């Protein structure tokens, strides 16, 4: 059970207010999609949830506890690009999370422990359709395959929350349908909470159980930076996905 609560959250960079007074409660196993115009704080919101930006005021609570101010293994992330390790093969990329967790000193597993990690990794590799590419390097994969690997890489660590920052934005439209099916399947199997920033409104309705719209409520034409964005619409999409 993962509950995410946001209380009176503000974010300012100097005099520029990016987010103002964001309040939110997200229940367990939700798929939250976030849309909004460019520069209205969607990504900043995600970065604070990730732990690479610190709120100016207010707080994030996960299951009643304050969010740690560094990225950690309870929150996974998939960026649009660059989140794979180019020097590791597909399989090694997938194993990395398990190895880091169980081998603090060397960050590598050997023998029986490695076999146990493989037993966990191989079915997931199969599930994301990369079984035949296990020994390839990321640079040899297509964009869609890279994103599937990046998602699997996060999912294998069983994070409570998975953050997706426009993960399908750079992909061919033909591939996105497959990616949507994949992410929904993983979301249902692993029962995590997903926050996904997207530019694609259709995608946000299709995938989400809850849609958040970030926008500026007030605008001062003399000082456009004086007011920040907040959540203007918080639309529950009536659990269509959960029943299916």
């Amino acid at each position, binding site marked *: 059970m993962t509950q995410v609560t946001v209380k009176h959250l503000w974010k300012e960079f100097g005099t520029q207010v990016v987010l103002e007074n964001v309040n939110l409660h997200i229940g367990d196993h939700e798929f939250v999609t976030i849309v909004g115009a460019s520069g209205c704080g969607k990504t900043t919101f995600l970065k604070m949830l990730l732990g690479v930006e610190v709120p100016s005021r207010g707080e994030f609570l996960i299951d009643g506890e304050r969010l740690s101010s*560094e*990225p950690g293994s309870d929150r996974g*992330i998939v960026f649009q690009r660059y989140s794979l390790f*180019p020097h590791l093969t597909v399989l090694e990329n997938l194993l990395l999370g398990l190895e880091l*967790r169980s081998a603090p000193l060397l960050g590598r597993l050997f023998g029986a422990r490695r076999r146990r990690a493989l037993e966990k990794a191989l079915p997931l590799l199969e599930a994301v359709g990369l079984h035949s590419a296990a020994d390839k390097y990321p640079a040899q994969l297509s964009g869609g395959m890279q994103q599937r690997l990046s998602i699997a*890489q*996060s999912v294998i*660590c069983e994070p409570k929350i998975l953050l997706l920052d426009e993960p399908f934005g750079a992909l061919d439209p033909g591939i996105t349908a497959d990616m949507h099916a994949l992410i929904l399947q993983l979301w249902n199997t692993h029962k995590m909470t997903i926050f996904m920033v997207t530019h694609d409104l259709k995608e946000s309705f299709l995938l989400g159980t809850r849609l958040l719209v970030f926008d500026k409520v007030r605008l001062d034409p003399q000082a456009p930076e004086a007011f920040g964005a907040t959540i203007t619409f918080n639309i529950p999409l009536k659990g269509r996905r959960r029943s299916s």
Partner: protein
Amino acid sequence: MLSILPFVLVVSTYLFYSHARLIDNPGDKLLPAPATIAAAIHRLAFEEDERSGEYLWWTDTGASLQRLGIALAISAVIGLSMGLAIGVLPYLRAAIAPFVAALSLIPPLAILPILFIVVGLGEVAKITLIVIGVAPVIVRDLAMRAAELPNEQIIKAQTLGASTWQLVLRVVLPQLWPRLIDALRLCLGSAWLFLIAAEAIASTEGLGYRIFLVRRYLAMDVILPYVAWITLLAFSMDWVLKVLRAKLFAWADSN
């Protein structure tokens, strides 16, 4: 095949002018005939030296390569460890990166006298000179490469549970290895320069020493093959490093 053409052109030009000068004056030493050069090579490489009883060509080569090898190994260790530390730890970067930058701008040959005074005329001075000339460049290069890694990668590793130590060991260091080889390849030229300079000034054997020694007798028949031999050695080292990089770090080429 086209790439051989310039070499052929240079060699034939040499042969032409050498021949012309030797017709003019059979005692000319400036552009010796191929037979004279071959005789010199034979004398140095395959006959014992009358005084020392050594095969000078190979003694010189061994001495020079040993100095170069030790100096490059030390530079690589310094370059990798300091470059990694500066690249990964922002505090260290703020503290010593400007110092390293300043250090790398000191002309190493200008402090060669200091080295001779402080550590004497032996091997240490020559190796230190090369290290001083090469290591700061490698440190700066690797620090920049480490800092260049996409932030997304670092954050991703942290969300996979990586500690700073694991981040260095599994993410940053493995990606620096091919960069280290690149940096070494680029430094080979200056390393040879410092080696020959140091040998020319104070030495009793070595490729640079020999060239500068026989210069007094205008012995172009020794200098020319030595220069060609040094070039061949430098070229082979570069080639070996290139092959090593392709073999060991296949992933780095597919980017």
